[in-house]
């Protein structure tokens, strides 16, 4: 029968197709030796000042040297950066802890590793002057940078603790509208939203340019005011294949974080120059200075606060699993820190 003969040949055709696909895709892997470009993602936020200043001063490029070239991409928020990372468009990115954990959990622990912290603090809930407490927020509209991002989860959790409900499509007691940070500032100025939980410099800009007030400085919610707001996330296959390049990036970061602490004025100028280069618009020096005071640069990924972030996200239904057993790989960082005579960090 005609159909039978087709069915009989089908497996052969399928097998042929796969052999073709496999050979077509096989040639792309490259060896560990030789120069390898490192594609690094980061945001034009002050919470990413390590990357801003390190890239502006050429520290990352210098440390990579003959190991390869640095190529950078910038994002508005973590979920977009993680999408780029998982799909292989970039190799590593500075992101907030929640998108980092999400990438880890979605890939069942196979795709990514956190290899360092970068920043602690630097996120606040800024609201209209007429709002004085959590209770005043009922029926109001608040913005976050992106659904599932670190500030988005922080806001939902904080509202939940204060007895206010939210949902992922903007319903509940408080309507949460994830949107671009620049749009958040203009809509706040126009009165279309009542506040936003955003990272620096946007929190400071909402206060200085939008006439808002800080209702919650996120530092006040954490023991000793320390919580991780930026980590360095790398694709695991890149980490396995190119440890020398990853180590060079970590050297550049440790160096830059030291520079940020030792030379705040120069660092602020460099960060602003880089923000100008990315967004086409520089910040006011007063904005940078005020933002700077709200955060701290550290190589420690502050694992204890990250674990809390994870349980908050799960409580809000934004994360399926809390198993983050192999999320951290800090061995390269600790080797770099040892060479730089700085104290080691821990994954617990």
């Amino acid at each position, binding site marked *: 029968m005609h159909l039978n003969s087709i069915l009989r040949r089908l497996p052969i055709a399928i097998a042929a197709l796969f052999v073709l696909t496999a050979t077509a895709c096989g040639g792309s892997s490259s060896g560990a030796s030789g120069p390898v470009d490192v594609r690094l993602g980061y945001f034009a936020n002050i919470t990413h000042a390590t990357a801003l200043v390190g890239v502006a001063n050429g520290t990352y490029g210098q440390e990579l040297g003959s190991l390869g070239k640095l190529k950078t991409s910038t994002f508005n928020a973590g979920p977009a950066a993680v999408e780029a990372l998982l799909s292989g468009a970039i190799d590593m990115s500075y992101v907030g802890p929640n998108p980092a954990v*999400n990438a880890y959990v979605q*890939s069942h622990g196979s795709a990514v590793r956190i290899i360092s912290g970068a920043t602690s603090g630097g996120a606040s809930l800024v609201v209209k002057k007429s709002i004085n407490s959590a209770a005043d927020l009922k029926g109001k509209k608040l913005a976050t940078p992106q*659904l599932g991002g670190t500030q988005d989860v922080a806001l939902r959790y904080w509202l939940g603790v204060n007895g206010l409900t939210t949902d992922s*499509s903007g*319903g509940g007691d408080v309507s949460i509208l994830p949107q671009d940070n620049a749009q958040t500032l203009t809509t706040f100025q126009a009165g279309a939203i009542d506040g936003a939980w955003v990272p620096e410099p946007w929190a400071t800009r909402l206060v200085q340019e939008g006439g808002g007030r800080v209702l919650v400085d996120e530092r006040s919610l954490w023991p000793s005011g320390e919580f991780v707001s930026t980590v360095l996330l790398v694709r695991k296959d890149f980490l396995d294949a190119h440890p020398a390049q990853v180590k060079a990036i970590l050297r550049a970061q440790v160096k830059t974080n030291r520079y940020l602490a030792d030379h705040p004025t120069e660092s602020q100028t460099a960060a602003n120059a880089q923000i100008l280069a990315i967004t086409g618009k520089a910040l006011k020096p007063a904005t940078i200075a005020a933002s700077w005071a709200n955060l701290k640069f550290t190589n420690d990924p502050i694992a204890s606060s990250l674990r809390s972030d994870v349980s908050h996200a799960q409580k809000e239904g934004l994360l399926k699993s809390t198993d983050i057993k192999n999320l951290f790989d800090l061995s390269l960082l600790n080797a770099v820190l040892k060479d730089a005579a700085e104290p080691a960090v821990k994954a617990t």
Partner: protein
Amino acid sequence: MNPADRARAIARNAFPPVGAVIIVLVLWQAVVLLNVWPPYLLPPPLDVLGALGEQVRSPDFYKAVGITVGRAITGYALATVIGTAIGVSMAVVPLLRRALGSLITALQTMPSVAWFPFAILLFRLSEGAILVVVVLGAAPSIANGIISGIDNVPRQLTSAARILGARGPFLYRRVILPAAMPYVLAGLKQAWAFAWRSLLAGELLVIVAGRPSLGAKLQFARDFSDAPTMIALLVVLLVIGILVDRGFGFADLRVRARRGLVREVA
């Protein structure tokens, strides 16, 4: 037909589509096993089934399906009314037709997604923006279907009807409309495809607060890098598409039955 024959007939009809689905699933699983993409980018069919099960168990999912289908029906109904009015007036008034004919065709070929930035500007991120674009996408096809339907009614048919005394509304209702039906139906079917596409494009771009939809869910799955849920939602969209196509297929059959091209349907 005895029950055994009937069962055999059903099996014979079901075999090609079921076979096609099985082949797709096998190919998909094979690509997954080849590891061209890691499983978190291209999940295996079983993971997607799990995600689909998770969706089907959540009440939010039905709300989203309800809102998406509701928007489609509203937009499509509005497009039908507007498209029919435009189509009929253009078919009847030659001046109107010369004035607007090419514009309608141009509108029909225009990708309706292109309207969204402007629609969002005028209507903000609201139901209105989505509705306007769905109507803009679908109405021209309906109008064009009606125009070519009326154009293609055989002269002999209208002449014969006139000789037999048919005039005015009666002529339109009993002679021209049934004769134009195949074209009208083709226009309606194409309009549905345009409406459905515009709607999904709109739902990805325009996420209205407090109104979950399939498009918004797809966008959320993207924000969480959740590939299984993404594919599960694609399956849901596909199923809705197939169901609607079945509906149109049935209407098509009725029209052909009237013309004696197939046996009368039950």
